[in-house]
């Protein structure tokens, strides 16, 4: 019920009724932009919006999306560092290497 899907607003179709054409996964559908309408409707063209039951409900914030992805990437990098540290600890904990390559 609460499912929403990202769609790109491609053109304003009826400025009076605040309707626009959205491209959702290659399917075009007229949606209401009443909830996200700025003063100049043309500013919406090209924006990605979360579409729910025929309404653009929220403009997707590209900066915030990037920040979230950055945090996820950071997790991977931190993990690599932690793993490297653990490997280092493990290596140090091993009994001293006495064998000498001959």
């Amino acid at each position, binding site marked *: *019920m609460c*499912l929403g899907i990202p769609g790109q607003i491609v053109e304003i179709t009826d400025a009076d009724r605040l309707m626009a054409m959205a491209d959702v996964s290659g399917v075009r559908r007229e949606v209401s932009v*009443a909830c996200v309408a700025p003063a100049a409707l043309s500013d919406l063209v090209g924006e990605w919006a*979360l579409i729910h*039951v*025929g*309404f653009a409900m929220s403009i997707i*914030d590209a900066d915030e999306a990037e920040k979230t992805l950055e945090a996820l990437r950071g997790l*991977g990098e931190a993990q690599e560092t932690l793993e490297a540290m653990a490997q280092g600890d493990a290596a140090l904990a091993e009994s001293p290497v006495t064998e000498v390559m001959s």
Partner: protein
Amino acid sequence: MRYVEEFRDPVAAQDVLRAIKDVVTEIGATKEKPVHIMEICGGHTHAIFRYGLDRLTPDGIEFIHGPGCPVCVLPMSRIDECVEIAERSEVIFATFGDAMRVPGTRKSLMQAKADGADIRMVYSPLDALELARRNPEREVVFFGLGFETTTPSTALSIQQAAREKLGNFSVFCNHIRVPPPIKALLDDPYMILDGFVGPGHVSMVIGTHPYDFIADDYCKPIVVAGFEPLDLLQSVLMVLRQIRDGRAEVENQYARVVPEHGNPISIAAIEDVYEPRPTFEWRGLGEIDASGLRIRHAYQAYDAEEKFSVGYGAGPRLVTEPEGCACGQVMTGRIKPLQCPQYGTGCTPEMPLGALMVSSEGACAAYYQYSAADDVLEAAE
């Protein structure tokens, strides 16, 4: 599709899963003594099962599936009222497809349609408005169903009908709100909850502050989450870190869609058209104060309850549930779907007895669709 694939990256998922495992170990949670995290939203329940996140995450995490599926919490009496309206000869009854198979005491909307009622499945309330424009001699009634995510769409449709003076359009309002049942669950002494994954699309409308009471008054963490697998895993990690650190905060993982203060245009439309009912009945949870919305007097002409004298205010309400149905216990986390005696025998997605088996967002339907085969395997082992 933009902002979808990025949040389905399997390599990144492995990193988050490792981090989750570490925090679960730090907390000391185990299969016997798990951390209980409720995902409130039915869309999240569906995603958890669809992507197998319940199986990928460590044993120390137990997901409790919350009441956030509007079709599932709708009492049978409301379906009966839908059927009553839909069977009137002058009515075209427009509904989201999800509601078609929910059983009423007499019949479902699907059965009513088979019996000749003019019931149309639509994608949007705007489609119902268009039906009203094209059929001026008929009464078009839209089944207004859903949480705060969907409420603005019917509010704006009613406002539009009022502007156009469309006298043959009305809404049968069953809109409900997320915070009141969460409070009811937190007040339930039998409910064990350590934290919440908060609903993403409800929050894009109402913002994150309506959940402040969860952190401030009940000292539970809540993280508003998106719907892709990485969104959910990252949110679970954020909840676990709060638990580990002894924090209780409202955090927002889904900031790309959810502004802190929600959507002011949507909130204004809801407040213009709707007001809270003193009380509203939830399937499995009973009556919850101020949890449902009704159409304000100023828009009475667009209120199907007024127009057809059905529903609240039309007489004493009979509360009935199908015999042997344990939806209420599943919905409050007391039992798992598999523990319901009707699961998979007396109640299946094809022949649902309880509402949780109907919607793809219902916990039982999700179990049935995505984990039935695994459970059979497990039982055989």
